[in-house]
């Protein structure tokens, strides 16, 4: 009896050790993480919540809330193979909830990245279909964070709330929520690096992404607050979802020595 208990306890301890090794500091063994920093801009100027901007069609808009998910990061190697950022079914690792109002959410790391030369990065604006229908989640994917629809359960991929004098909604509200559903997968973004990025045992990189909110209106689709004050279901929000994927560009990439990464999260 006692022996059996001991055996079970030992198994448990071993499992814990494995778990700790798995989610802890694998970075040192497998490579360095890549840091990503996001700035929300309008054209070239930083976005300021509450400020007034204009679309090219002349409609005014302001943002009060801007939140979205980024996930399923992949890095393209020079030889066209991919490094796929690890995600695990039992945590929200690899799923990032970016919130303009929360500075910490705009800087995060993917990886660890194997040493090599990379030519571009790909990610989803939103959550992949498998995870979107996988039941109760934790961390950034905790439905208690409010990025979750109950009238058609699944995550809100991209949430933009503000005002426009041209909006016919109550209090001139402007509300764009995109989300998943059978007909509306999360949009994928691919950004080519101008010059390839080297990841070595000593150096990684920081990618500075700009998300340009003017392109939410003047993007692949021309959207006007005057004619589209609200988009809240997968069908109505399909064009908003397309445009949300067009917001991103690489502003610059800089080398990040191992020592610099330690200060990151």
């Amino acid at each position, binding site marked *: 009896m006692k022996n059996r208990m001991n055996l079970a306890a030992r198994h448990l301890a071993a499992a814990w050790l494995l778990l700790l090794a798995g989610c802890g500091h694998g970075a040192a063994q497998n490579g360095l993480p890549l840091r990503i920093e996001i700035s929300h801009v309008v054209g070239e100027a930083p976005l300021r919540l509450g400020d007034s901007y204009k679309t090219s069609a002349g409609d005014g808009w302001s943002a009060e809330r801007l939140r979205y998910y980024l996930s399923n990061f992949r890095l393209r190697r020079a030889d066209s193979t991919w490094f796929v950022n690890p995600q695990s079914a039992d945590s929200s690792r690899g799923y990032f909830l970016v919130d303009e109002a929360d500075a910490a959410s705009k800087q995060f790391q993917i990886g660890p990245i194997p040493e090599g030369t990379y030519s571009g990065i790909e990610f989803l604006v939103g959550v992949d279909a498998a995870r979107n229908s996988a039941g109760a989640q934790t961390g950034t994917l905790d*439905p208690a964070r409010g990025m979750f629809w109950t009238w058609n359960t699944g995550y809100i991929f991209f949430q933009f709330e503000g005002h426009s004098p041209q909006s016919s909604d109550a209090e001139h509200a402007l509300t764009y929520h995109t989300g998943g559903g059978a007909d509306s997968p999360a949009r994928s973004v691919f950004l080519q690096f101008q010059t390839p990025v080297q990841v070595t045992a000593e150096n990684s990189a920081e990618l500075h992404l700009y998300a340009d909110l003017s392109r939410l209106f003047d993007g692949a689709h021309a959207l006007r607050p005057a004619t589209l004050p609200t988009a809240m279901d997968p069908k109505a929000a399909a064009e908003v979802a397309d445009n949300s994927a067009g917001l991103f560009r690489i502003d610059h990439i800089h080398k990040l020595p191992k020592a610099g990464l330690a200060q990151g999260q």
Partner: protein
Amino acid sequence: MKRSTPWLFALPLLGMLAAMPWAQAWMTAHATPRLQVPEGWPVPRYDFAGNPVTSAGFALGRRLFYDPILSRDGSIACGSCHQQFAAFAHLDHRVSHGIGGVNGKRNTPGLFNLAWQPDLMWDGSVHHLELQPVAPMSNPVEMGGSLALAVDKLRRNARYPELFAQAFGSPGVDSQRLLRALAQFTGTLVSADSRYDRFVKGKEAFTPQERDGLDLFREHCASCHREPLFSDFSYRNNGLDAAPRDAGRAVVSGRDEDQGRFRVPSLRNIALTAPYMHDGRYDSLEQVLDHYSGGIQPSPTLDPSLAHGVPLSPDQRTALLAFLDTLTDESFVHDRRFAETHD
């Protein structure tokens, strides 16, 4: 091995205790249901492999289901609207009656065999059993709060942190654990022991009238209310309105052809779950049969199989009603494991 010997002396005592009626009641109330797939039933859609049912987890789910702590002001529990004696529907309430006495727009369905349902709610808006409670908890006319608020209240509560730790093996109250505990309760509400079930297994006989009723049912109703779950889980318009006030499935799909379509509801325990239909418009099964035999309203999305209604003679009506009564599962509504406990 030696150390455990004294326990042997306790065994007869335990046996004596177990034979006492109150102890039996205690044991049934505390036994943990496992999801057993009744013979001939399909594979469940909800997979408990990711959320293994344990006695502490099930008991926590049951406690949460009956605890108004999940509502904003502590006035409404899941169990306020879902009553066991009504197969977890809300007896005598046309539409839900939530926080502050405000009415919702849909009728409270019974809760059973949920693990087999591909989607939940009348319009199929909820795609996963674990995530269903987020809907009533955050609905301003149901429990009026939010998932975050409920988690916060549970964390501060004197008893729950301990119960969560017992249920999940480590300390921590979070929304995933809350939702999984609730799913351990709602997902194991299996109702498969009606007279109909015993008839199908050859364990019990039907009267000739019930037999006629079953034949009529299979002829006119079973194409939608398919055995053994008594639903094919499709979305259909069964002709309630020429111009539906509730868009139903179209709310979720955004498609015009889904206007006025609702999920085919199971008819198990149907005699217990009045009133009927998504808006609770009919008080009795007689009225439901009036509808199918003479009240079908034409509309562009009406299901073609009901275009001419289901004409029924008085005898046929009585037979059909007798059959519907055999779908009542007395052992389910009296199962103490599913009842509110006060420990």
